[in-house]
C-alpha cells in the first residue's frame, strides 16, 4: 500500500544486490535505527534500558548466532548457552589476567575462544545430522557447564562460583550506567547484524544455504561440506561468545555458569523458531517475543488478580505458553514471525491486488 516501486530501477549490480533494494525499506530501516540510537535513550528509563532493552539486544545477538548455524546452515544446536559461557569466561579471564587490554579486544577474544570451541564440537556434524547432532551439542552444553563449575582456574579461584565482572572502560570512558552500556551493546549488535546480512548475500551465505537445502547437490557443485559447516559453527559460536561476554558484563555484572544452563540454550532455540529460521530480523523478533512475553504476563497477572497470583504460577504459565507457541509456529508457520512479516510486506506491495 505504501510501496511506490515504479521508477526504482537499478543501473548497476551493486545497487541491485544491496541489502535493501527498495527505497521504502531503506527509509524504514533508517527510522528504526534512529529510534534505537536517539529516541529510546531519551525516553527509556534505567529500568527499561537495564532489564529490557539491553537483555533483548544481547539475546538477539545470541539468537543471531544460533540462526547462522540452524537457520542458514541447517545444523541444529542445543549448546548455544555453553558457547555463551565460553565467551563470558574467556573474556573474564583475559581481563582479570591482563587488565591493560582494551575492552573491545576482550570481547573479541571471548568471541574467538567460543568460536574455537564451537568448531571442535561442530566436528560431529560432518558425520551426523538432525537431532543426532543436537545430542552432540547437548554434550557440549553439559561438559562446558561442568568445566566452569569444577575448575576454579576459570573462576580465578573465587570462593563462590559467582564472580562479579570488573567494570568496563572503553576508550577511557567508564561504561557503568545502563545508558552507556546500552550504547555499547547496541553498536556491537547492529554491526554484527549487518555483518551477517552481508555474509548471507555473499559466497559464504550461499554455501551455507546450499548445505542446508540439499547437501548432496551442494557437494556436487564443489562446496566443501566440512569447511562450510565448520565455518558456520565458528561464526555462530563467535556471536554466541560475544553475546555471552556482553551478558556477563552488561546484563548480569557477574560471571557465573548458572547463567548459561541448558534452559538458556532452549530459550535461544525458541527465539529463532518463533522469530524465524534463516533471517536476521527473525533473531530480533524472536528475542523481543521471548523477552517481552514474561514481562507482559507478570504485569497482566498482577493486573488481573491484583498480585494475588504467585510469580511461580506465572512462571509455569510462561512455560506452557512458550511450549504452545513453539508447537503453534512449527505447525502454522515454520519460518516464524519473520516470514509472517515478509508475507505482510508482499501483500502491501501487491495491494490492492490479491496476487
Amino acid at each position: 500500500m505504501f510501496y511506490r516501486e515504479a521508477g526504482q530501477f537499478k543501473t548497476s549490480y551493486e545497487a541491485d544486490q544491496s541489502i535493501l533494494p527498495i527505497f521504502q525499506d531503506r527509509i524504514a530501516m533508517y527510522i528504526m535505527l534512529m529510534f534505537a540510537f536517539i529516541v529510546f535513550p531519551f525516553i527509556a528509563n534505567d529500568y527499561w534500558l537495564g532489564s529490557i532493552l539491553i537483555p533483548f539486544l544481547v539475546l538477539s545477538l545470541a539468537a543471531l548466532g544460533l540462526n547462522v548455524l540452524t537457520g542458514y546452515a541447517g545444523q541444529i544446536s542445543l549448546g548455544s548457552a555453553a558457547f555463551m559461557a565460553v565467551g563470558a569466561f574467556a573474556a573474564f579471564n583475559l581481563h582479570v589476567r591482563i587488565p591493560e587490554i582494551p575492552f573491545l579486544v576482550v570481547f573479541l577474544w571471548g568471541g574467538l575462544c567460543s568460536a574455537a570451541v564451537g568448531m571442535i564440537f561442530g566436528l560431529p556434524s560432518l558425520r551426523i545430522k538432525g537431532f543426532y547432532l543436537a545430542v552432540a551439542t547437548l554434550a557440549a552444553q553439559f561438559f562446558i557447564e561442568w568445566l566452569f563449575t569444577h575448575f576454579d582456574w576459570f573462576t580465578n579461584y573465587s570462593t563462590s562460583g559467582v564472580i562479579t565482572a570488573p567494570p568496563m572502560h572503553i576508550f577511557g570512558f567508564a561504561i557503568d550506567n545502563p545508558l552507556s552500556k546500552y550504547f555499547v551493546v547496541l553498536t556491537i549488535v547492529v554491526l554484527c547484524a549487518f555483518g551477517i546480512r552481508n555474509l548471507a548475500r555473499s559466497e559464504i551465505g550461499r554455501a551455507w544455504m546450499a548445505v542446508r537445502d540439499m547437501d548432496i547437490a551442494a557437494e556436487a557443485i564443489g562446496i566443501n561440506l566440512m569447511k562450510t559447516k565448520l565455518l558456520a559453527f565458528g561464526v555462530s559460536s563467535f556471536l554466541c561468545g560475544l553475546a555471552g561476554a556482553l551478558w556477563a558484563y552488561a546484563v548480569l555484572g557477574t560471571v557465573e555458569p548458572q547463567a548459561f544452563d541448558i534452559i538458556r540454550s532452549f530459550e535461544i532455540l525458541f527465539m529463532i523458531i518463533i522469530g524465524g529460521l534463516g533471517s536476521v530480523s527473525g533473531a530480533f523478533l524472536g528475542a523481543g517475543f521471548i523477552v517481552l512475553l514474561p514481562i507482559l504476563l507478570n504485569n497482566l497477572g498482577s493486573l488481573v488478580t491484583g498480585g494475588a497470583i504467585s510469580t511461580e504460577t506465572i512462571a509455569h504459565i510462561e512455560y506452557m505458553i512458550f511450549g504452545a507457541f513453539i508447537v503453534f509456529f512449527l505447525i502454522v508457520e515454520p519460518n516464524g514471525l519473520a516470514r509472517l512479516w515478509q508475507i505482510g510486506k508482499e501483500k502491501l506491495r501487491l495491494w490492492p491486488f490479491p496476487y
Partner: protein
Amino acid sequence: MKNILLKILQCMLKIVNQKRFILTFSVLVSVIILSLAIYLFMDYWFFLEVFIGGLLSGVMYSLVALGFVLIFKASGVFNFAQGAMVLFAALTFVRLIEMGVPMLGAATLTMLVMVILAIAIERIVLRPLVNQDLIILFMATIGLNYFIEGMAQLVWDSNVHVLDLGIDEYAAYEIGEAFVNKFDVLAALIAGGLVLLLALFFRYTVIGRALRAVADDHQAALSVGIPLRTIWIYVWSAAGLVALVAGMVWGSKLGVQFAIATVALKAIPVLIIGGFTSVPGAIIGGLIVGCGEKLAEVYLGGFVGGAIENWFPYMLAMIVLMIRPEGLFGEKIIERV
C-alpha cells in the same frame, strides 16, 4: 549325525558373523578383562559394588530410554517430552496418593490421564505435523516438553513430594563384601518386568505387530491399511505407562520433583549408544551408561574435581556417534542419492 554337527557349526558361524554380536561380544570381553584387572590390582569387592550399583541405576535409565524407543520406532519422532511425561505421571500419581487414593487406583487413574494426554498429543501436535521433517517434529516435542512441564507444575505444585512405595531404601543385600541396595534391585526387577512385558506385547499382539510394521515403513504400513493414528495413540500411551513406572521408581528414590524431568535427558546418550530403534539396545545402553558413569565418577572423578557423571555419558555417546552413528543395535541409516 555328522551333518547335524555341521548345521550347528554353520549356525555358530552365522551368529559370530553378525556385526552387532561381535560388538556386544567385544564389549563384554573388555568388561571382563577390565574386571579381571581390577580383581588383581584393587579392592574388587568395592569395584563390584560400584559396578552392580551402576548396572542397577542403568536399568532405570533403560526404563526411561524405553519410552523414547517405543515412540521413535513407531513414528520416527525423537520425543524430547519423555522427561516431562515422567514428571507429569509421577506428580499425578503422588498427588492422588496424597489425596488418599489407594496406590492401585492412583496408578490406574494416572494411566488413564496418560492415555488422554497421548490422544491429545496425537490430535494437536502429531497429526498436523505428519510427514514433516523429523527435525521439525523433534523441535515440536521440545515445545511439548515445556508445555507439559509447565502444566504438571501448574495443575499440581512444584514442591518436593515424598513417594513411599513401602520399601526400605537403605536395606541392602550383602554379596561377599559388597553391599547391594535392595531398592535398586527391586527397581531393576520392576524395570526388567516391564521390558519383558513390552517385548511380549511387541511380539504377540496384533497392535504389537502393526507397530513393528509401522516402524519398518510408514507408507507401506499405511498402504496395507494399518491406521497410523491409532497406532500413535497406542504408542504414546505405552510411553505414558513407561513414564509412570519410571516416575514411580525415580520418584520414590529421589522424591517427586522437577529434577526427575532432567533425569530423562540421561536417556539420550543411552539411546545413542544403544541405538534408537531397538528395545534391547535401550537396555544394554542403559546398563553401559549406568555403570560407565558410576565407574568413571569413582575412578576418574577424583582427578578432575568430581561430578563428571553429568557429562560422561554424553561424551561416551559422542564417541559412539563418531564411530557408529546408528548405535550398537540400531538399524543402519542409509542415504539415497
